[in-house]
């Protein structure tokens, strides 16, 4: 615990100082360990390494959008459009390669560029026209769900295009699964790469510092001479890119596009970010916490799948309870932080 005795510091910057800032993430990691040990104690085969690896296969797209969401939430905003942008990107991949006959790598680049451009546009609207992020990104939620349904209201298969086989090509570690090894497909490595790049950007670049500063106090960031416009628009571009990349990963994983896929993915991503220890008001949090948050969500679903008797809606209820616990924990820490100052 630091012992500065500044009296005029704004309350928010004192929220998580010293070791206190690691309490939420510590709680998440502890929760993960408890869940994992509980799984091993109750279910046969839960200790297989593939159970953990499986999290990074099934939840790789969610991980990628949650990383993008972390940027937006750290800056004090929110992005409701990610689920729809992701579904649209998958559908666009299918449409461009199957119907329009464009070569798959080019289609992928187009989709990623489009997602980033959309993020830039919505970020510019939010910043320059001072529209609330909630409302501005709501446009994306409706627009891309509508466009996806207009491209096709049924499943589109991409099985004929060889390129989409690449994502599930896998690498084995430590031998076959039955010999205690595990395997990961290429798309998991893409997700890992996104996490590493995001970590480096957030903690070791000017842009990353700017994101934290704006989330802490936009007014102060502006007065400090930080590039507020560039940073604010940038986080939505990052989120748009991540959402479209998640869509591409989903195309790799399923080799088909469903117009109603990922309804509510934005909520899962927000929940994962909060459980990962990021403050929803912005300014405090870690991208690695988000990874832990996504793992909690994945492990929860895996546990329910192993149990077999429970319905998947229990996952949502437990997630709500966890969210409540973490939000209250953040509140308590914030209050004690305020008290210590005064």
């Amino acid at each position, binding site marked *: 615990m630091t012992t500065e005795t500044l009296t005029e510091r704004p309350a928010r910057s004192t929220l998580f100082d010293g070791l206190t800032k690691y309490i939420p993430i510590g709680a998440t990691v502890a929760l993960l360990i408890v869940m994992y040990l509980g799984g091993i104690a109750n279910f046969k085969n839960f200790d297989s390494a593939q159970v953990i690896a499986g999290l990074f296969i099934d939840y790789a797209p969610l991980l990628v959008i949650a990383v993008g969401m972390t940027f937006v939430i750290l800056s004090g905003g929110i992005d409701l459009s990610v689920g729809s942008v992701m579904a649209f990107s998958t559908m666009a991949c299918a449409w461009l390669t199957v119907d329009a006959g464009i070569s798959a790598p080019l289609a992928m680049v187009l989709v990623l560029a489009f997602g980033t451009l959309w993020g830039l546009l919505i970020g510019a609207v939010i910043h320059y026209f*001072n*529209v609330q992020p*909630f409302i501005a990104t*709501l446009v994306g939620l409706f*627009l891309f769900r509508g466009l996806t349904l207009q491209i096709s209201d049924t499943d589109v298969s991409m099985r004929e295009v060889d390129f989409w086989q690449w994502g599930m090509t896998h690498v084995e570690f430590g031998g076959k699964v039955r010999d205690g090894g595990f395997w990961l497909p290429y798309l998991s490595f893409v997700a890992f790469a996104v996490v590493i790049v995001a970590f480096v950007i957030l903690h070791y670049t000017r842009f990353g510092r700017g994101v934290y500063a704006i989330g802490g106090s936009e007014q102060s960031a502006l007065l400090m001479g930080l590039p507020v416009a560039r940073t604010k628009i940038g986080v939505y571009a990052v989120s748009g890119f991540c959402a479209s990349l998640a869509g591409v990963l989903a195309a790799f994983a399923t080799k088909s596009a469903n117009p109603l896929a990922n309804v509510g993915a934005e909520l899962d991503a927000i929940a994962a970010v909060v459980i990962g220890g990021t403050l929803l008001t912005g300014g405090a949090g870690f991208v690695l916490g988000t990874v832990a948050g996504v793992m909690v969500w994945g492990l929860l679903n895996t546990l329910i799948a192993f149990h077999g008797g429970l319905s998947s809606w229990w996952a949502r209820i437990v997630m709500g309870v966890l969210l409540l616990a973490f939000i209250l924990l953040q509140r308590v820490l914030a209050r004690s932080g305020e008290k210590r100052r005064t």
Partner: protein
Amino acid sequence: MNSYAKRLMWPVLILVALIVVNIAATGIDFIIPSVNDGRLGGAFVNILRRSAPLMLIALGMTLVIATKGIDLSVGAVYAIGAAIACQMIIGQEDQSAAGLIFSAVALALVVTAVIGAWNGTMVAYFGIQPIVATLILMIAGRGIAQLITGGQIPKVQDSSPFTQLGRGEIFTIPLPIWIAALVFVAIALLTRKTALGLLLESVGGNPEASRLAGIRSKGITVLVYLVCGLCAGLAGLIGAANLGSADANNGGLWIELDAILAVVIGGTALLGGRFYLLGTTIGVVIIGTLEDTIINVGLSSQWQFTAKAIVVFAVALLQSPEFRGWILKPFKPKPEAAAPAPAPAEEVPAK
């Protein structure tokens, strides 16, 4: 033109334009109600009837937004209300017993009011941001509804009087319209003929200043979330009664977004401090009419989402002083160098 009429001008113009488009596409019958089998019908009356659940939720949402809050959980509360009532009714042999229907409706309303009060307590007493506090139930709520229905879709017998809540009529006017109108009048009287409305706006403007001025702002915050939960529960009952079943997954899906959209179209800013119940009403009718317009002009129903996106975008931009300043700049006379000032200046008294 006073500021209130000015606020309502744009929504009314949009609504009139939509109605004109519909009349052009389907003929004058669109707007003229007809009486079939002792019941008021016609395309426009049907729109009003179908919009009743959205109307109820949007009214509750207006009050919440007036206090600078937001309630994302209404869709989930809608599903919970519907699930409780339907599950309770199908559990009994005689699904037509008046006592059963009454207690099912009462239980659903009490539970949804408690859920609303819980949201309000989180916001007022734990100091959690409204968007976060209500997000919890938005995520968990549909799971709870599934828990109540056991993952099934309970179907109430068509003969049960419960379905009258959605399908019945009194004096030839459909019951859902009556309920929505009554709730509107009750809320309007409570907020405009008593001090409550003023207190609400005061809490939305500045909760801490209101508290210091002697207003019990925490109690008022809990109250508006309670009313919003209650409205969502009632909307769920009407929706379930209309369908005769409660779908925990899809009942009231995205209704929270439609409700927020209706409130914003009606001129209530998300920043709190001012609210326009009549504007919200017009917003709801616009959304309802928009859905029909898309079909009537011959577009596929998938255009609905796209059309809504365009409406949200247009409304968000039109309400932004920065955008208006930017777009009107070329039209401002050059000599008056200080011209950009009047546009924002007009906004100041309106806020």
